[in-house]
């Protein structure tokens, strides 16, 4: 887990396993206030207070194939190293959101990594789930919404390799503009 994108890829797996149908990934890079915040929100089955209290413990996992779950603890550790924090809000049967922040210019903050590739991977690997991806850099904002994309694609699969290429290009083009001041 050496990039923020990989953590996102990992944390979203929890949402998928919680049977979410809509997953919202927002990234806010605020260079003025010197932080980067990532929020992953889903409408999956949620957690009760008891599970919520233990979820950052590596020996907590809901899976049955093994007894440890490292996704959340790793991210929490990573945030802690870069002067940030991790918070989880959840309401059973309604929604869950994971919020994580890092000090932007901290030497131990992981780089963002291949975010467009990660988003396209998630979108294509889970064609039945809708994704919203919002990326803000200071006051610039880009929003990618699979509901809109699926409307445009009509009867073509969103996981067609050629479509994947197009989506990646589209996200990259818009992202590069966010960084222009």
């Amino acid at each position, binding site marked *: *887990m050496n990039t923020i994108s*990989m953590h996102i*890829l*990992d944390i979203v*797996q929890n949402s*998928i*396993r919680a049977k979410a149908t809509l997953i919202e990934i927002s990234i806010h890079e605020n260079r003025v206030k010197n932080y980067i915040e990532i929020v992953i929100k889903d409408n999956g089955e949620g957690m009760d207070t008891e599970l919520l209290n233990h979820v950052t413990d590596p020996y907590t996992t809901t*899976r049955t*194939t*093994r*007894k440890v*779950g*490292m*996704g959340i603890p*790793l991210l929490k550790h990573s945030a802690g190293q870069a002067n940030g924090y991790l918070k989880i809000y959840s309401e059973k049967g309604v929604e869950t959101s994971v919020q994580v922040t890092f000090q932007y210019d901290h030497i131990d903050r992981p780089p963002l990594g*291949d975010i467009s*590739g*990660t988003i396209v*991977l998630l979108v*294509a*690997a*889970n064609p039945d789930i809708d994704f919203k991806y919002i990326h803000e850099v200071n006051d610039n904002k880009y929003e990618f919404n699979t509901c*809109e*994309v699926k409307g*445009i*694609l009509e*009867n*073509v*699969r969103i*996981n*067609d*390799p*050629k*479509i*994947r290429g*197009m*989506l990646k*290009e*589209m996200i990259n*083009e*818009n992202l590069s503009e966010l960084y222009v001041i």
Partner: protein
Amino acid sequence: MTKIKTLADLKKMKEELQTKVDLREKGDSAENYVQIKVGMATSGIASGAKQVMDFLIEALEKRNIEAVVTQTGDMGYCFAEPTIEVKKPGEEPIVFGYVDMKKADEIIEKYIKLGELVDGIIPVNYQVIDDK
């Protein structure tokens, strides 16, 4: 060629492409394709499952093999990550462990194309200590 930036560009490109090549339609049954699932839990991601998945998609596309690559959660073989499950049409799925790009290439060339078995198969009856 101008780059795709807006949804309108995407629509245009899609229509252009649709007239030239067959894009996969939603109604097509996945049964007719090679289906590959990449194990993508924490252990998988940390050991490079994303790169393997990107490679598989690209390589299958280049070699004109009809395939659907998706992700799955943990398969319980954390020691052997990255793991992938390959299901050829009409055949039983097979799980391969320790799949790096070289191995993925071998799986495509030997197993998917020629039907030869390659090293690294995790047998279905493999027992982990918890089962005992």
